C-alpha cells in the first residue's frame, strides 16, 4: 500500500501541502484543518483516511517546496 511519507527534518511547517489538499477537495476553500494531510502533528508517516494520493500524482507532494514529502510504496 502506498503512503505519503514526511521528512520532518525537511518540513518547515509552511502548510502548502495542506493548502492545496483542502483547495482540491474542500469546495474551493482553503482550510488546513480539513486537509487530508496534516504536517503540524508529528506522525511517523502520513496515513490519512480518505486520501487516494490524487490518483498517482499527489498534489501535496507537488506543492512542497522543501522536498519533505514523498510517495512510498509498501
Amino acid at each position, binding site marked *: 500500500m502506498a503512503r505519503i511519507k514526511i521528512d520532518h527534518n525537511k518540513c*518547515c511547517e*509552511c502548510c502548502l501541502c495542506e493548502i492545496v489538499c483542502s483547495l482540491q477537495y474542500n469546495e474551493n476553500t482553503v482550510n488546513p484543518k480539513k486537509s487530508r494531510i496534516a504536517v503540524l502533528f508529528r506522525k511517523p508517516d502520513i496515513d490519512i483516511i480518505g486520501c487516494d494520493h490524487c490518483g498517482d500524482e499527489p498534489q501535496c507532494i507537488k506543492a512542497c517546496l522543501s522536498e519533505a514529502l514523498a510517495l512510498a510504496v509498501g
Partner: protein
Amino acid sequence: MHGWIGKILRVDLTRGSYAIEDLDPSMAKSFIGGRGLASKLLFDEVDAKVDPLSPGNTLTFATGPLTGSGTIGGSRYMIVTKSPLTMAIACSNIGGYFGPELKFAGYDIVILEGRAPDPVYLSIEDDHVEIKPAEHLWGKTTVETEDRIRSEIGDPRKAKETQIATIGPAGENLVRIACIMHAGHAAGRSGVGAVMGAKHLKAVAVRGTKGVAIADADSFKELLATLSDKIRKSPALERRPLYGTWTGISRANKFGVLATRNFQAGYLEGLDGTEKVLREKFFVKSHTCFSCPFQEFKTTRVTDPEFQGEGEGPEWESFGLLGPDCGISNFAAIVKANYLCNELGMDTISAGGTIACAMELYERGLLPADDIGYQLNFGNEKAMVELVKRLGLRQGFGDILAEGAYRLAEKYGHPEFFMGAKKQEFPGFHPQGFQILALGYATSNRGACHLKNVAYYDETRFETAGQAAIAKTDQDYIAAIDSSGLCHAIYIRDFFPWREEIAPALLEAATGAGYGKESMLLTGERLWNLERLFNLKAGLTARDDTLPKRILEEPMPEGPSKGQVVRLGEMLPEYYEVRGWDENGVPTAEKLAELGLSQEGVR
C-alpha cells in the same frame, strides 16, 4: 464573499462586550483589507486628535483577502491605530500564523475599542468569543504569555493550533516603542504595543476551523503553480533558509549605507560575511510563516556566559540598530539585546536608535553620566544590553528612553541628534546612501520606514532627478500589497521582477471583485492619500516631511557613500506635484475626487 470572509469582530473592552458586523463589500473593494481597510475604519471612527493612549483610540487587527488564501507569502496582517510615538497613523505588519488563523475563525478584522477595567485577554475560537481575565499574565514576557495561554488549553492539538499575539511588559508600561509579538514575529514599529497595553489587553488568542473561499479556484491554482515554479528556480530558495535577512548586513555595509554610531557614518569595519558568522556561531534552526517556504526566521542561541540565552533573530535591521548604530560589533551582545526586546515586547529598531541617540548625547557632553548611571560611550555593549532591559521596564534612566529618541533628544535640548522622521527612529539603511529611500523616510505616513518604498542598489542611488515619481509608484504599490495580506519578501523585493504581474492576478482570482494592475495601484494611492488626510487632521503639516539637519547638511564622512547629503529640496516639491498635492503637501480637491475621497477631504 470570496477572499474576504465578510465579517468584522468589534470588541468593546470597557463594557466587556462584542458584536459581529458584516463587512461592507464596496468598502472592501475600495480599500482591499489589511492596512487599507483598517485605516479607513480608523479614519471614519476615531478623532484624529485623540490621545493615542486613551480609550478613544482603537486598535485594529486586519487581514487582507489574500491572508490565509494559501498563496505563497499570504500570511500577513496589519495592526492599525494612532501611534503614541509619532502621533500619526500607524500600521505595523506582522507574519507568522495568526492572520490566517483569524480568517479560519471567521473574521477579516478585529476592532478593539475602549479600555478594560482590569487586565484581560481576548479568546476567539470560531464563533465563541470570550474576554478572559489576564491578571495572572500581566508582567509576563511575550514568550511566557504565549506558553501560559497554551498550557491552559486542555487539548494539545487545539493548544498547538491556537495562535497568540501578545504584548510584553513594555506594552503594559506604555513604552512608546512597544510592539506586539506572535511566535517570535513582531508588529514592531510605531508603538502599537503601548496602545494595546493602554487598553489593558494582554493578548489575543485565536483558533479557527473554517476556511477561505476562493472565487476562481482554477485560475488561483494555476497562479500558485506558476509562483511555485518561479520560486523553485530562484536562488533565494536556497539562500534564505540559510541566512534569512542576515545577508542584508554585509550588503548595506558594502554600499556604505549601514546605520553606524547614530547615523554619523554608514560603514563599520569588520562586518564582511556577517551572515556566515551568525550562521556558524548562533544559528539553531529556521522557521517560517504560513504558506511560505522561505524560512527567513532564525532561532539562535548565545553561549557566551555574559550574554547567554536562546530566542529569535535578530533580523538585519535589528542587528543594524542594536549593533553598528550603537558602535557595537560584539555579536553576542547584539543577539542578546534582540532577545530582550522580543521578550519585553518592544521594537528592536527604535530601541537601538534610542540608545544610539543617548550615546551621542553622552559623548557630546549633553547628557550627564549621573542621569544614565553609566559611562555611555559608543561601543559600550554591557550598558546597551542593560539599558534595553531598563527601557522595557521603565526602570531608572530607562523611563526616559521609553519615550523614544525624539523625546529624549528634545528633553536634553538637542532634538537635532534625533535620527528619524516624524518622531520615529530610522531603520538600518542610512538615508545618505539612497536619495529615493531618504525621500521615502521623509514622506512615509507612519514616520521613518524602510517598508514603504524601495531602496534600489544600483547607480541611481545618488540621483534625485525622477526619483519622486518612482517613489510614489512604489509607495502606492506597497500600500496595496500591505492591504492584500501579502509579504514584502516575495512581492516587493527587487529580485522578483514578476511581482507586479502576479499580485493583482492573485487578488482577482481570490476575490473575483474586478481587480487589475491599474486598479490595484489606484487603490494603493487612495490609501496613501487617506493616511495623509488622517495625519493632516491630527495636526501634522508639510514641515513634518523632513529629515535631521545632519542628514541634509553634513556629508557622509567615509565609506562607499562618502560625500553624500540628502538633497531633499530637489525631490520634495516634485513629489508633491506627482502626488497631486499643493505646495503645502495637502491633496488637491481634484486628486481627492479622482480617488473617490472627496467626502474624506472635507476639513
